[in-house]
């Protein structure tokens, strides 16, 4: 396998940027979570790329499995916050969340 570490990370950077852009411009809380997921994917790819380069594949896999578990719980928590907010305020607009200020 030809390892193209720099190229991998080039794409990882792009995916990360896409997720970040989503989180910056989107008003929709769900889209925020989607951006967040995209960024998580980029991090995951980064770990496997680094592991593959240095021959620590088993370790990288172990990390990725744990990360996926964490990711699921995080997304579940985020979505439940979203749904609860929707039930409470009937809105999923994150820009309208500005009651706390000063």
């Amino acid at each position, binding site marked *: 396998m030809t390892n193209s570490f720099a190229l991998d990370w080039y794409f990882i950077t792009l995916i*990360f940027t896409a997720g970040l852009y989503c*989180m910056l411009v989107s008003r929709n*809380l769900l889209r*925020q979570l989607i951006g*967040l997921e995209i*960024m*998580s994917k*980029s*991090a*995951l790819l*980064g*770990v496997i*790329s*680094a*592991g593959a*380069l*240095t021959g*620590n594949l088993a*370790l*990288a896999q172990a*990390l990725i499995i*744990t*990360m996926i578990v*964490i990711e699921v*719980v*995080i997304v579940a*928590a*985020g979505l439940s*916050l*979203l749904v*609860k*907010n929707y039930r*409470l*305020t009937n809105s999923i607009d*994150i820009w309208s*969340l500005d*009651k*706390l200020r*000063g």
Partner: protein
Amino acid sequence: MTTGLLAYLLIPLFTAVLIPFAARTRHRLAGVLANVTLLAGLINVSLTLFNPANLASAFSGLAENGFALLMIFVIYLVALCVTFFSSYFIGNDSTVNRVPYYSLILTSVSAMCGIVTTGDFFTLYIFVEVLAVTSFALITSDDGAKGLEGAIKYFLLTFPASLFIIFGIAFLMLTAGTFSFESLKVIIASGLPVGGVVFAVSLILLGFLIKSGVVPFHTWTPDAYEGAYAPVSAYLAGIVTKVSGVYAVIRISMILRLFEIKAYHTAEVLMFLGMLSIVVGALAALRQNEFKRMLAFSSISQVGYIILAAGMGTPLALLGAVFHLVNHATFKTVLFLNSASLEKSAGTSDMNKLGGMEHSMPWTSWTSIVALLSTAGVPPLSGFWSKLIIIIALWDGGAKIYAVTALLFSVVTLAYFMVMQRKVFFGKPTEASRNAREVRPAMLVPVVGMCLLIAALGAFFPYIYAYLVEAIAARTIL
């Protein structure tokens, strides 16, 4: 991981799992179980710490990791205060669901113990995430819109932190092949070039800086603290964000100092951000009207002191940072619990609507005074010593401008706390405060106990210093 400390992690987790089954029908049992678990843990850790043999030998014979032991003590202490306070605070409030509430607190205690006992970056990351997830839910315990807003902002604004920690871990795997602190020390000691390791560690540090709410990343802090369910703000501000962020920053700067000149710029950024936090936090706190929000900005400012000292990186500065972390946990818990008492009693924590509370709530007023004096660094309370150590360390380390600014802003600290005390406790009673009564004695127990601890930490400073030097500096830092 020190296996001897594993019990502090496992037992709360076990109780947390037990609670939904045991307290299925009798919800009040949940609080009792949580309190008993935490009290047992606290007694156990106190016996280890304040063993007369340890005191006599100036802690040099302590078997366990001294830093972790101290942190576990603080974690159990604050958690016990909060759960004890909550068990009376919740009362007949039907919006709060006791079973998951106490389960979450115990889970987060377990996670915090995991954070402070681990010696590995990835494990650290896992427990930080556990802690974050539990705190999102804890913030919204009372189903309020404010709490939800705070939780969502906390969730989204601190999420990049996890990513940077992961990226840092990836780079660490790339450049060092390992994540544990000990093997990093070995690699540094081996004399191989470590520039890439420094970058990786810097990225991880960035993640924890975001988690600890240092200034450009602080925006979630006031919202989360203000919006959170009242006892939970004490828990969050007192210990959760400190362990999930600031503790890790101190740990990382203990490693950074081993890189010596190669990590110079990272340490410099750290100091700069610490200073910025002190300044912005203190200035922003000056004009707040909401008690809890003011305390949140004050918390940012105090975290700035810790970060500043951590960035300085000399052994003395790190000891000061650790001690200030401990002190911050004590006095900020007192202040937030007092704000919760005010909310319960007077129905609001808006400072403009309060006034003259010293007549109706004398205990709350006096404990606030003790805590704020300690925060501002007034001798002989504990906060004075930690700030003194930090400023002396900064001065000795050559960061004279930082030292002077830190000193000046402790005056500002005193100023905004005096404004608070005047608005809330002194002056003429207002509409809201006329009907207020002192909270029940049981709710004063944690606060008064904490105040006694503040005074004791100040009075027995020589012992504390001996502990810091013998049990932390001699083993963890050097």
